[in-house]
């Protein structure tokens, strides 16, 4: 893997849709030196690249699909946690201008 530099971090941060200050970026670069040391521990392990990736703790096979159970919440409940609501719709800034 190529070295993590400030531009790589900026790309990642942009994809995550938040911003960092210059100070936070330099702290993050420092952190990544440590993180990369840790990550190297993984590549030192014999046979790691031949192993099957593990996505869950153990195999669970459910050979069925459950019946759909209708579960409705009221419009009021569905909207009560959004801070800008009008006519039962969540208001966001205009997308197409």
């Amino acid at each position, binding site marked *: 893997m190529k070295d993590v530099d400030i531009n790589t971090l900026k790309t990642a941060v942009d994809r995550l849709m938040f911003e960092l200050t210059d100070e936070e970026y330099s702290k993050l670069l420092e*952190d990544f030196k440590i993180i990369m*040391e840790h990550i190297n521990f993984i590549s030192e392990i014999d046979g790691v690249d031949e192993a099957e990736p593990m996505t869950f703790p153990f195999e669970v096979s459910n050979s069925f699909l459950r019946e759909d159970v209708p579960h409705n919440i009221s419009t009021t409940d569905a909207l009560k946690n959004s801070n800008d609501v009008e006519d039962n719709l969540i208001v966001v800034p205009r997308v197409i201008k």
Partner: protein
Amino acid sequence: MNYLSKDIRTIHNAILDGKVTPLDLVIEAISLAKKDNNNAFEYICEKEAIQKAKSLDKNKISKLLYGIPVVIKDNYATKDIPTTASSNILNGYVPVFSSEVVTRLENEGAIVIGKSTMDELAMGGTGTNGHLGITYNPWDKSHTHIIGGSSSGSAASVSAGIVPFSIGSDTGDSVRKPASYAGLVGLKPTWGRISRYGLFPFACSLDHVAYFTRNVFDSACILNVLAGRDDKDFSSSFKEVEDYTKQLDNPLLGKKIAVIKEINDSVSSQTIKEQFNKTVAFLRDNGAVVDEISIDQKLLRAIYSTYIIIASAEATSNYASLDGIKFGNRIDGNSYEEVVKKTRTAGFSAYAKRRFVIGSLSLLKENQNELFLRAQKCRRLIVNAFNKVFEKYDAIYAPASPTVAPLIKTTKVQIDNDSLIADNYMAFANLGGFPSITIPIGFCDGLPFGGNLTAKPFDESNLLNIANELEKKTGLANIVAGK
């Protein structure tokens, strides 16, 4: 008499005998929660809890949890009660439903008296990075030591004698490590044993419901209530639920227990080493076969990085929903993108953002093979190594932490570069979904420390049995700070 510093069974018997009522208990718990100086609470449910105590169905008085106050970590949805996961991005969020864990506890008569502080969004192991600041360790009146995290407030509330049990969550060791620092029993059952419906997803392949009690018997009782299939959580298991109290007092004769040399070698505290060895001697004296075995040091050293890559990648994806649009603390802007960006910039701490960046980088197409995929492959090798141990042994036993609770000033709010195996190994039980329990085994300079037992999936009865027998020897059941 203060019943709240007792164990659940003692309080239950006092209710049955008419010595105390659920309302007395709730009023006392709320009074103690209000006086709490350890920063254990996000929200105290005063009105809600008193009303519940007054309206309990008296026909349920024989249920063990009838009228018992409980504290819930703030990453569990609680209907009509604010839930923030200690993150500014969720300030003002009030769930419209309750998590399955809360529903099951309330059906048994338990009364939620508060939501507890935690490391933001359950990311962290120190109890220092939630939006309300540091949660303190009740064993340390000078407030210089951490209690650990991420389930920090849940640990503090039981340890300080406010409630007899509390719910946390455990994705790396977030209940079992603070249990060690707080002198509590902390159980993380098998992955799938307890429904996670309503627990904010952080890293779905590693997240577990877990909880704190003051003794092993109470831990088994709570598992009896919480275990079992829930159709609302597709990862919850159909496996039969046992009565987990039944085998608690079985003799240890013939049990096979492994201690891992590489973990013990990396424990820095001499007192912990010596006390741990005493407990090993007890296990042997009572008929258990205890062998010291080895696991490849390289694999043990890789547990932390494997965990951090997988957990961060899954968190990046799960927490993408926190955009301030549908719920949460929205900050306005001129475009949809600007709203999301401003909201997420202001809403997450620097620590959470750093974890998301690790996740995002490891998921980038050009890095995926070397980071995320390789971590998943390493996970397989780590879990295989431990499964091999469980082919021969009933349990693995090790110190739950290499030291007592560290000083706050030495705890960095960043990714920990401490490569000590003993400080990070417990995440193997999350990688493999193994049931795992921490119990107190000793004290050093007035601070408690624990031992950790882990067993094969769905072998909770065996695990609790060994823990219970060990607890009888340590004499450290039902300890409360300052009592």
